[in-house]
């Protein structure tokens, strides 16, 4: 088991972290005086008291933008180490990174074609897969989900 000796510090750190967390909770429980009031028990102890819940629905487009961000973030993550050793990788590295960047660029093309970055009124260059014309009747599903095993119930409704 010699090869596992090097994991000992990690294990020790793991135990220490657990012990620290446990001790902190225990110490505050033992040492702190407990005098709860309504204000202290509130979920948000500071700031303005919320009068109503925030809106639950917001455009799915925000998620799409977040996804696009992740894609290009990954590209940058790969470009940094490549730039550091660019000299040693030579032509091979250049070709590989260009191929990589090109495939990421193609994904951008695809995203643009599906209208993911249009913020005005919906005007798609290429229709999305699926019949997604939205009306209040189709978007807001009042009750139940179709096809959760009991087939026909949603359809019949």
């Amino acid at each position, binding site marked *: *088991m010699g*090869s*596992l000796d090097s*994991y000992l510090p990690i294990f020790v750190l793991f135990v220490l972290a657990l012990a620290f967390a446990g001790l902190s909770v225990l110490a505050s429980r033992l040492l702190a005086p407990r005098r709860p009031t309504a204000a202290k028990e509130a979920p948000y102890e500071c700031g303005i008291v919320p009068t109503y819940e925030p809106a639950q629905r917001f455009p799915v487009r925000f998620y799409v933008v977040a996804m696009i961000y992740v894609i290009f973030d990954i590209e940058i993550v790969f470009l940094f180490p490549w730039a550091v*050793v660019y000299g*040693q*990788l030579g032509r*091979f590295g250049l070709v590989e990174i260009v191929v990589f960047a090109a*495939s990421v660029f*193609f*994904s951008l*093309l*695809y995203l*643009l*074609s599906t209208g993911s970055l249009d913020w005005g009124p919906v005007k798609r*260059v*290429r*229709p*999305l*897969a*699926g*019949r*997604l014309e939205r009306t209040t009747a189709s978007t807001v599903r009042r009750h139940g*989900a*179709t*096809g*959760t*095993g009991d*087939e*026909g119930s*949603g*359809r*019949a409704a």
Partner: protein
Amino acid sequence: MIGLESLRGLQGALLGAGGIVLPHIDYTAILPELILLGGMLLLLVVAALSPRRLATEFYATATVGIGIASLVASLVLWKDVVSHGPFTAVAKSLDIDGFAVLFLVLVSCVLIVAPMLAVGYLRREGIEGCEYYVLALISGSGAMFMASANDLVLVFLALEVLSLPLYVLAGFDRRRAASSEAAIKYFVLGAFSSAIFVYGIALTYGATGSTNLGQIAAFLARNVLTSNGVLLGGVALLLCGFAFKIAAVPFHMWSPDVYQGAPTPATGFMAALAKAGGFAALLRVFVTSFPTLRSSWQPVIWVVAILTLVLGASFAVVQRDIKRMLAYSSINHAGFILLGLQAATAQGVAASLYYLFIYAFLVLGSFAVVTLVAGRGDDQHDLSRYRGLARRQPVLAGSFTVLLIAQAGAPFTTGFFSKLYVLQAAVAAHSYALAAVAMGSAAIATFFYLRVVFLMYSGSAPVEAGVSPELVEPGAASLAAPALAMAAPSGQALASGLVAAGGAGVEPAWAKRSGGGSGASGEGDGAEPPGEATTGVPETPLSSSPWTVAGLGICVGATVLFGIWPEPIIEFARLATTIF
């Protein structure tokens, strides 16, 4: 200052004294995968740049073309392997041997047939676009890498490339909540099993000092571990990860739900590809890396195989939903394929490979039939839909009969030989009990396959006709149907389509039967809720899409042709294992 010093040290260690050693990349060795990925990117760009919406047939044609190109590249690679022997490529992370090439060919075939079977569905449901085909190609490249991976890290990466598009395909029909639910279920459980798999890799690496399959085997052959708990833990976790992918029994819970919810052609594709990829890596990792631990993992596989065989077959019997039934039947098939691994001999692995190869066609074809019968909306999967199918669509019913009796293991179909060879391998490895259980489960399985066949040929006859001897006659006649279906697929299909279209005005037999709600039928499906499947969505005629006719024709044709003349694939599987 100390931080800077250690950073310099780290940099020195990373860069090494002589700079970076670039691996030699043999592009011919990864040509099939490159073709798939390159073709995928091309499709994506064409779809993005084309000013008007392209027909789904265009994408299907392109995908079939890409599949054929990768098939040709795979066969060239096969010639290489046969003449020069197996070789490793790209810093020994890929092992190009007969075993790998067999899977390259298999995945290429799946990618040729699967788009054909998807065209009609995508058009019918109005979800056309390049996405389905692009995702299928990515998934295919993952399966290919999985089969040739010679490094656990690459196995993991390939597993993810295989799985992620499949999660999306499971949720491809965004209008159906069941589809999204299937995708979420598959994704969450799949991600969890991947995490377990990675932990298995970590433990194996900790115990052996390498992730390369060859080096692990060499290490284990040279050294005797005095306490191999970490290694065994790693192997067990790896097995869990694989067992999830192939839906072996303690890890099978996801598969009926996902198979049921996913779009039906995607289900067939998923069943064919995920099983092939999962088994490819499972067989390679266990047979090449851990042969020295055989006495430890063989009993585990033995138990898993028995559970998979018995539970898969028995749960399939009680299903009312044809997709769930086929899901449990695919679990049963996974049990049979595990027999080959349990034997852990070249004969066993060859039998498993043969089984996987023919299973892909069976499952693709079966789900293609289910797609058509379900009709628009893709949610009419009750078994009662199949009552009298033979009268309405004789060719479709004939094809389904061939595919089902092949899955049951009837002679003159590929299913017979596949079951025969795994059983032979199990007996040769002295696993008599396992072989006996497998045969018992095959008998149970025959029951639920034949039940569907009888339903299809029973028409709107009275309930007790289910057990009357006259029903055996149409059942026997169905054996002749494959020959007809093979002889003139398109002509016959068109004729049947006309018949079906002509008969559309007549109230379908199943509606009468269900509307009557006349209690239990003779086959023991007493739990049928009356009036459930009478929402009146007509089934799609086979002739509605020449693509489906062609794809189904290939599946049925391969099943019958290689059932009568099995030598080529057997020889292929045998060569694949002797070389590796």
